[in-house]
């Protein structure tokens, strides 16, 4: 029998914290896209109408610009960005093609229910080069979705509408319950947007995509109510170690 002098103390299990599941999902997707070759760029959450709307071919009459959809600040001098697309505009104004950027972060819209929040997170990517086609876009989206959800996942492309892409598409995946679930939006960069960024649309074309991080995190973790992410409940957060 050994003496208690020889006994080691029980392993000291120090509590470890956790990264917020939304930031973990953001890091995972950004990491994946960086491995594909995309470069991370960053931009402000408080934007001008010019960068958030005008440069992206969002007309003055577009419903998204209305006070009921967009948060304006300081006497309408600025707004809280409604998407991360203005970061792509800033990137395209700074760098000449070929280019491949991603940006991720908080965005804001005037929504508040079980599936929408006034603040949520997006990741968007843009690639501009010679002869980029919709068939290339499909290839990239397949690679992203297969990396996130596995090679067996079934996906479909549906025509959609975004002022900054043309053609535009939304992509759904087939859930295990047989329901199609929308996971991202994408399209070929509208030539008007390229021209707004002083890129010759006769020589270059581009593709762009954007996905809602909460949406993907809800699907991957089985969280039904988006509000759970932002209650700061330690019982919730400690599950994501």
């Amino acid at each position, binding site marked *: 029998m050994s003496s*208690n002098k020889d006994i080691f*103390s*029980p392993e000291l*299990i*120090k*509590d*470890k*914290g956790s990264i*917020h599941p939304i930031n*973990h999902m953001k890091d995972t997707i950004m990491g994946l896209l*960086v491995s594909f*070759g995309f*470069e*991370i*760029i*960053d931009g*402000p*959450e408080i934007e001008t109408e010019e960068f958030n709307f005008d440069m992206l071919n969002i007309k*003055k*009459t577009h*419903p998204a610009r*209305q*006070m*009921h959809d967009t*948060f*304006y*600040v*300081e006497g309408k*001098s*600025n707004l809280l960005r409604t998407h991360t697309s203005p970061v792509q505009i800033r990137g395209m104004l700074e760098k000449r093609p070929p*280019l*491949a950027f991603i940006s991720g972060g908080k965005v804001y819209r*005037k929504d508040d229910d079980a599936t929408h*929040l*006034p603040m949520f997170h997006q990741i968007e990517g843009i690639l501009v*080069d010679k002869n980029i*086609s*919709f*068939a*290339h876009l*499909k290839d990239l989206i397949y690679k992203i979705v297969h990396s996130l959800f596995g090679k067996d996942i079934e996906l479909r492309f*549906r*025509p959609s*509408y975004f002022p900054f892409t*043309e*053609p*535009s598409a939304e992509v759904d995946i087939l859930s295990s319950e047989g329901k199609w679930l929308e996971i991202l939006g994408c399209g*070929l960069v*509208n030539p008007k947007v390229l021209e707004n960024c002083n890129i010759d649309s006769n020589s270059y*074309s581009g593709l762009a995509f954007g996905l809602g991080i909460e949406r993907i995190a809800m699907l991957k*973790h*089985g969280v039904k109510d988006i509000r759970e*992410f932002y209650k700061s*409940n*330690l*019982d919730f*957060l400690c*599950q*994501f*170690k």
Partner: protein
Amino acid sequence: MKIAYKHLVKNIIANPSIDEISDRLFQLGHEHEIENDIFNMEFTPNRGDCLSLNGLLRDLSVFYDVDANQEIYNEKLNILDIDFENFSHDICPQISFLKIEIEDIPDKYKDYLNDYFIDLNLNKNNFFTDISNYISYENGQPTHCYDADKINGKLVFQELDTDQEFETLLGKKINLKNKNPVFLLNDKVINLAGVIGGIETSCSSNTKTALVECAFFKPEAIIGKSVKYDIQSEASYKFERFVDPECQDRTIRRFIKIVDEHANIKDVSVISYNFKQNKVTKIPIKTNEINQIIGTNISQELYLNYLSKLGFIINDEHIEAPSYRSDIETQNDLAEEIARVIGYDNITRNEITIPKGKKSNIYDLENNLRFFLLDEGFYEIINSPFVGSDSSNSISVDNPLDSNKKYLRSNLIESLLENLLYNERRQKDSIKLFEISDIYTVKNKKINVTRKLGIIASGRAGHNYKDFSKKISKKYLTSVFKETLPNENFEFKALNRELLNTKVKNEIICCEVDIANFSSDVLSYKKISKPPENFIEYSPISDLPYSIRDLSFSIKDFTELDKFIEYILGFKHDFLKEVYIFDYFNNEKNAEIKIGFRFVFQSSDSTITEAQVNDIISVIIDHTEEINGITIPGLN
């Protein structure tokens, strides 16, 4: 918008099934749900032309032979003598008025009109309004019917900057503010144009003479009005999304035809104003460019055939967009049309080469900070920036969701304090939180951004036998942080609990540091924690109270000590949320080790009872009693 399958298929010669049409609609980009053979359509905002039975049939005609030419009134029409003036041609470049008088109001409708109300479960109003609603469903053009006997003066259209009360035909009183496109009768608003008419001039079940207004309003003049005045309006939904500026004549003649099929017309006259010619969009035929955009190789013949079926007019060198397709301007728009017809899912993937961008290190420092904090037991929080109170440099939100969200926060600590108190109320006795976020402030109208790290902590230092009895304090946190990051200045401070009205009395320690103030030493921090490799399936959390039990064991035979500890720490039960060693004492003199375990129980269905906890604890005790040399002091 709801469209009945029955109404669609009646006009499609091939008689496709509802599932087949559904698949085709998805292929064309028209999202929908189906309930009781009704398509509940959700069109993208650029496809206002599809907001009708005929509009949808036009799109489906690329796949099917469609016969949607409803009969119209073809007789010559008298010119209406009306006192009307349009002061806002830009907003309303086309408008027609039809005055129609009938002998008797019909007591029943023809099948097609009656079916519209029954199939879509709609209420009837009065004869003329019912036809107006039906026509809007059939061809997408909203019309408004006045009781002609109530229009006794000069009718004016203009965008008016006004402040007056207006009662809608549904009896809702609204205060018109700022600029609104309106129809005025003797200087009084009788119609909020493109949205809803007024009660004073509306048709009733006795109306035998109607004045029907059929106009094109520019979307930008109508947009936002129904939301502003909280009015549900199908007309404004359509005008906001663009109606065909060239369909007024056909709409008026269709209106007369339907009236004619139901009643004897005593008198009918029409006047049309065309203040501004509609712009025609012409795009050069460039099949190669279309193939380049999509990544296909379709022939020019097929390309033009598809467009022709969608209503485009093909000339020698140009493609002319139909008047109802205001969304078509460029080769990319035409490419999308072709891609829709081919089917996005039928376009073959082409392997992409991504130009390699430079590796970014913009997040390296804060990522290392995050991992340092995780290793010290801190949880990352993300808070909304909206707060109810301001400081001198807070940014104000012009259109907040509510009065508690009127400003953007100017610090992280206040949100983190709320997070801490929330978890205290949930019986958490060791709370360590942090957040990294941009903070926006304003000074002299200039918006400034600072990226900050906020940390807050209170309660026990940790759930292990070394930290359990230590309380988080300024001294404790400073020493822990200095040990690993000696050159960083966290400047912890204690918050005053007196104003917080809490039962818990533990110190609350916090700090807020600009990320820019950290040195590059942080970059050399060696992480211990790793992010989870797999995605964790989340278990719904319970809001019910916890029950805590402590068990202290005396161990005098150490041969099975490891096995014993492994058993307790690995014990699983649905109600057991956490177990950890909170006490450890090695009494060398008495050759005895004492270990205290804390068990935290919670049920997800109802408050956990003493009996339920006792049952689980009994299982543990029974098991350990069988191990030689392990006892529970005080247990009989």
